[in-house]
């Protein structure tokens, strides 16, 4: 059915496009060749370039525009017969803008005739390109809008009905092929992510086991007067602190990264044995290696602390560098100046791994370091 509208725009409702018996035999040959090429296509933009080359002589086409839907805009993915300036002018369209935007918005095929004699502002762009006839088809698969594909002529003011049928059939094939390529790309991304995850898991498991051996081995450095039970408890508590750093892993797309607030809260509550108020000025990510080092440091610092009040996590600028500062408010941690006095050797090494410094004041202790995840 054709519906004539003012300004030479004809909206066509013929879904799905039919293969008419009356179509010229050479059109059927073009459709067969097109289907074959689209089935073998591997690149969405090159695919439409090849398609244009296949049909432009038969249909005497001068121009094509292929837009890809990207969020709420249409992005020019492939084109032919345009000057660089025209391509740049039409590089991005809003839904509803120009004839391609209108076809996308209304999800309707549009045939625009006698463009050069029209004053309709919607046709301004195709008129500036020099077209007199233009046929634009929204590319839809499974109810999902993928983009638009439009073909234009400078030498004539309209397309014949058979020509429009051929273009609509070809566009329906393009929609299927683009959907297939989209699914394949999505599967490839998914497989690559799984592969990265497996590699990361392999590294993480092996490293965590090595670290666990080190954590238990730290007890060999403790004076012999200590009881075996106390040594076991300390080793278990350190392993739990390390586990806290691993718990939030793989909960987001950022492999190997943990949320600092979740980590600090978890290890503090686990060490002091009660809920802890944590004030934070935003989201801070930590690599799991830094997370483990920070968790074990906080655990060591809070081990004998019974008066922990609040913890504050904030980003501070010091000497032109952004540092993550963790302030532990507790009178028993208060003091003056900086330094690692009184902390065990292992904690000193962890602070060096973090490139962290410690400041003490009247309210407690602050551990701060440059955090590059």
């Amino acid at each position, binding site marked *: 059915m054709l519906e004539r509208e003012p300004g030479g725009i004809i909206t066509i409702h013929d879904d799905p496009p039919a293969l008419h018996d009356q179509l010229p035999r050479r059109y059927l040959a073009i459709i067969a060749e097109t289907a074959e090429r689209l089935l073998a296509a591997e690149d969405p933009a090159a695919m439409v370039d090849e398609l244009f080359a296949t049909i432009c002589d038969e249909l005497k086409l001068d121009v094509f525009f292929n837009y890809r839907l990207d969020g709420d805009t249409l992005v020019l993915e492939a084109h032919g017969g345009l000057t660089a300036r025209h391509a740049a002018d039409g590089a991005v369209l809003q839904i509803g803008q120009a004839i391609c935007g209108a076809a996308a918005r209304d999800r309707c095929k549009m045939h625009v005739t006698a463009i050069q004699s029209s004053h309709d502002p919607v046709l301004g762009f195709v008129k500036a390109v020099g077209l007199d006839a233009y046929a634009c088809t929204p590319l839809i698969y499974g109810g999902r809008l993928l983009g638009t594909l439009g073909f234009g002529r400078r030498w004539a003011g309209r397309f014949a009905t058979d020509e429009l049928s051929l273009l609509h059939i070809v566009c329906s094939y393009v929609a299927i092929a683009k959907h297939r390529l989209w699914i394949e790309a999505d599967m490839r991304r998914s497989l690559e992510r799984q592969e990265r995850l497996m590699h990361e898991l392999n590294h993480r498991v092996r490293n965590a*086991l090595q670290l666990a051996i080190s954590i238990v081995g730290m007890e060999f450095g403790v004076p012999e007067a200590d009881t075996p039970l106390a040594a076991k408890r300390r080793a278990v508590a350190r392993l739990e602190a390390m586990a806290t750093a691993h718990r939030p892993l793989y909960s987001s797309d950022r492999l190997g990264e943990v949320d600092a607030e979740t980590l600090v809260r978890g290890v503090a509550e686990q060490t002091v044995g009660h809920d802890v108020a944590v004030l934070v000025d935003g989201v801070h990510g930590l690599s799991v290696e830094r997370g483990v080092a920070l968790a074990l440091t906080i655990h060591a610092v809070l081990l004998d602390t019974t008066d922990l009040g609040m913890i504050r996590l904030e980003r501070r600028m010091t000497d032109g560098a952004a540092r993550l500062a963790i302030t532990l408010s507790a009178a028993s941690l208060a003091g003056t100046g900086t330094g690692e006095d009184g902390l065990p050797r292992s904690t000193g090494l962890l602070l060096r791994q973090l490139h962290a410094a410690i400041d003490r004041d009247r309210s407690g202790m602050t551990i701060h370091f440059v955090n590059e995840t």
Partner: protein
Amino acid sequence: MACDGEGKSLRILVVEDEALVAMLIEDALTLYEHKVVGVAENVAAAMMIATREPIDLALCDIRLADGDSGVDAAAQLAAFGIPSLYLSGNCPARTDNPLVVGYMAKPFPTAALGRAVTAAHAVAQGQAPQAMPAGMQLYDHH
């Protein structure tokens, strides 16, 4: 006390970014009467130590701090004539670097470190190792 009883005390560079793992390696090697001349968390730190200390063998983790690679560390140390043994969860299956003698995959038993270091040093000197711990593999450079 040389627990393995295999002689010479070696000067070892540990290239490892995890402080506690480095501490464990250092303690174990000290127990076997080797000397850890330094612990480096990245390639630059490793090279800084290599320019000021004589080193018999480097033990290199593969994934280092600052996105560095132990493979790069071993390559740059090789330019100084320093042989390496990889200690990592992700040891490469092969190497083109003739001074990387082999690898020991994490997690490794600390008791095996002394023998691994002695064996790796012997191989680097062109000798056959007297004993090689389970989990240690040599690269085929032929």
